[in-house]
């Protein structure tokens, strides 16, 4: 029964938009919030909700949590297509049942898995009252739109303080690790195993660069002193400590045990996760490759373990089930999924900010099947108008490990062309967005059978590219 005018508005808006072939992932919620401002609070009541926020890894982590809980017998409702503002969250709460991931067999219940934009989180967390809130990390991300990182951190702290959620927090990120201060009993930390991180740093050092990447948050905001790092994973993530106030990377409950002798950029990379509360360690295989996905997988295992415990399982059972389920995760469309195009593989890696660009380049430079790389850069409002962030990334030290065949498109193709050439690489072909599919097809032609063309668009470039791929290769619509 429809009890709110907002709900009715959302349902009708969605039906109309779907009839004309639109995804309708945000407009219905927008209409609903306008008519019933308290709609998120009303619709959240009595529901099991997990939120995921942070600048990088939100979508992948949400996807992993959804797949894992679904595998374990829960019906899942989520906003996986990235509609992560208040309007998208409201749409999912109201209309999400239409597209529920149903459990195999008898359902154990319904869980909402909601990716939430960092700024939106401050506004809606209190209304959503999630039971579990994952905070992945904070890297610079379209600062012209979102403002300073410390401000974003404070927004998340505000939101978190309005809930009773168990916060699942990355202990290696100094900005988010401090969110645990004052709510220790409601915070669960996860991160790389500190001993393993140090060992890997010593055995497999990064290539030297002529100029390090522009780092975020390497000073203690309270003491204005540079953090000392015992070890690092990437960016500003690592085992940090302020020599003045002593604030340091907290000891994690969930830790990744890993050895970089093999590369996490290849499928089924072997690693393990330990739960230091139950004392269990489980061997695992990385189902979505990339070193950053060690963090995302650990975050997802942490969130699922905590959620299952809340639903009545013992710590041991919960962790066993979470790690087992993590072995059944598959990549989502357009997020590292390998699409078969005439015997060749095409893999889209959405790149929105320097940290994501850095990780994706690192991934491709280590991927054994990489035969080509295509970069697409736009500068529409949703991308951030400023393209200068491409210079914040250390491409210089990765250049010699990247594929030789590089292709460039997007409205700001000229900027990307120069960026690549300044890193000492040659570009095979480049041109504006009107030539994107022509260049992509040329890149596919040059890709040998069985090998993969990696494509890195930013947000609006990805939307155009997906639409073109759907049209040209008959791929499924992405909101499904």
């Amino acid at each position, binding site marked *: 029964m429809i009890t709110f005018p907002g709900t009715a508005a959302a349902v009708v808006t969605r039906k109309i938009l779907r009839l004309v072939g639109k995804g309708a992932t945000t407009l219905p919620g927008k209409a609903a919030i306008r008519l019933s401002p308290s709609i998120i609070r009303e619709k959240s009541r009595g529901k099991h909700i997990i939120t995921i926020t942070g600048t990088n890894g939100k979508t992948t982590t949400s996807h992993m949590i959804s797949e894992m809980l679904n595998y374990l017998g829960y019906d899942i409702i989520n906003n996986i297509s990235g509609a992560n503002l208040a309007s998208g969250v409201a749409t999912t709460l109201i209309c999400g049942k239409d597209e529920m991931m149903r459990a195999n067999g008898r359902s154990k219940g319904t869980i909402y898995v909601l990716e939430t934009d960092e700024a939106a989180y401050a506004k809606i967390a209190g209304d959503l009252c999630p039971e579990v809130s994952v905070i992945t990390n904070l890297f*610079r991300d379209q*600062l*012209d739109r979102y403002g*300073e*990182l*410390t401000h974003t951190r404070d927004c998340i702290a505000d939101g978190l303080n309005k809930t009773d959620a168990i916060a699942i927090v990355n202990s290696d990120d100094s900005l988010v690790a401090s969110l645990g201060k004052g709510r220790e009993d409601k915070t669960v930390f996860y991160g790389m195993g500190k001993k393993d991180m140090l060992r890997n740093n010593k055995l497999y050092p990064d290539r030297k660069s*002529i*100029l*390090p*990447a*522009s*780092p975020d948050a*390497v*000073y203690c*905001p309270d003491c*204005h002193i*540079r953090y000392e790092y015992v070890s690092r994973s990437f960016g500003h993530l690592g085992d940090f400590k302020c020599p003045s106030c002593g604030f340091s990377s907290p000891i994690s409950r969930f830790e990744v045990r890993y050895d970089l002798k093999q590369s996490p950029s290849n499928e089924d990379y072997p690693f393990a996760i330990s739960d230091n509360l139950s004392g269990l360690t489980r061997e695992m295989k990385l189902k979505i490759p990339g070193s950053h996905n060690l963090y995302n997988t650990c975050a997802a295992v942490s969130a699922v373990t905590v959620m299952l415990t809340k639903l009545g399982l013992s710590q041991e059972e919960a962790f066993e089930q979470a790690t087992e389920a993590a072995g059944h995760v598959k990549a989502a469309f357009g997020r590292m999924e390998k699409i078969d195009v005439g015997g060749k593989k095409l893999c889209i890696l959405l790149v929105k900010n320097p940290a994501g660009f850095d990780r994706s380049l690192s991934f491709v430079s280590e991927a054994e099947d990489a035969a080509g790389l295509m970069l697409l850069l736009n*500068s529409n409002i949703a991308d951030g*108008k*400023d*393209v*200068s*962030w*491409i*210079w*914040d990334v250390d491409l*210089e030290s990765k250049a010699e490990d990247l594929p030789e065949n590089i292709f460039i498109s997007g*409205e*700001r*193709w*000229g*900027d990307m*062309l*120069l*960026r690549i*050439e*300044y890193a000492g690489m040659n570009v095979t072909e480049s041109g*504006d967005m009107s030539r994107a599919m022509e260049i992509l097809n040329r890149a596919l032609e040059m890709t040998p059978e069985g090998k993969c063309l990696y494509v890195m668009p930013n947000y609006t470039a990805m939307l155009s590219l997906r639409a073109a791929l759907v049209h040209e290769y008959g791929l499924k619509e992405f909101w499904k």
Partner: protein
Amino acid sequence: MSDGYKLVIGHFYPDLLNLYGDRGNVLALYRRASLRGIDVSIRSISVADELDPSMIDIAFIGGGQDSEQNIMSDDLVRVKGPLIKDMIEDGKVFLCICGGYQMLGKYYKEHTGDIVECLGALDYYTEARSDRFINDTIYSLVLDDGSEVKVAGFENHSGRTYLGEGVKPFMKVLTGHGNNGEDGFEGAVYKNTFCSYSHGSLLPKNPAITDMLLSRAMKKRYGESFELAPLDSSTEDKARAAALEYIEKGKEKAP
């Protein structure tokens, strides 16, 4: 030939002032010098690091987030300040972008009316406003040989900078807002110190500026007779032309 020639780029506070592609400016100087056979090195000078002016040929100071500028401003103004002033007066080459530009001036007036003392090396001041100028930009620049070029950039600042008698504007605004959105000028020049609000990054797409800075730095180190060898800039020109075309088709208007 430039064999045997050396050049040192001093990168100020790279761990704090590193917004919006500031790093690209250092890369551009490095690339266009090393392609000419000059032995270039990049030296990082951050909080509490010693500054030896005799070791630096080109100084680069970028911009940071407010919280990061709070961490280093005292080190810049009070600790390294006197040496930086001497370097500027001595004719060392400086490129200062956005926050780095503002911090070399006389003061920064906050929204609250509070005055934040800056280095006072150059004759201008900045006032905060609530609305930000965030847009692509095109400027016109007159080079050392008298020719005029179009410069493509991007501005993102809420501060309005007003130049005094002691400095000259760096460029004229064709598209965008520039120093204050009122007088049509962008940036400031004093001796060999060049200041601008432009990100983009500024130098990669505008090799005429890169070469002007390199030429002045080399002349300062090796004497006025030093001539920078010619260098291909077809990729840079292609990238600038594409950016200018994109911007000129866009909505941004001159003030």
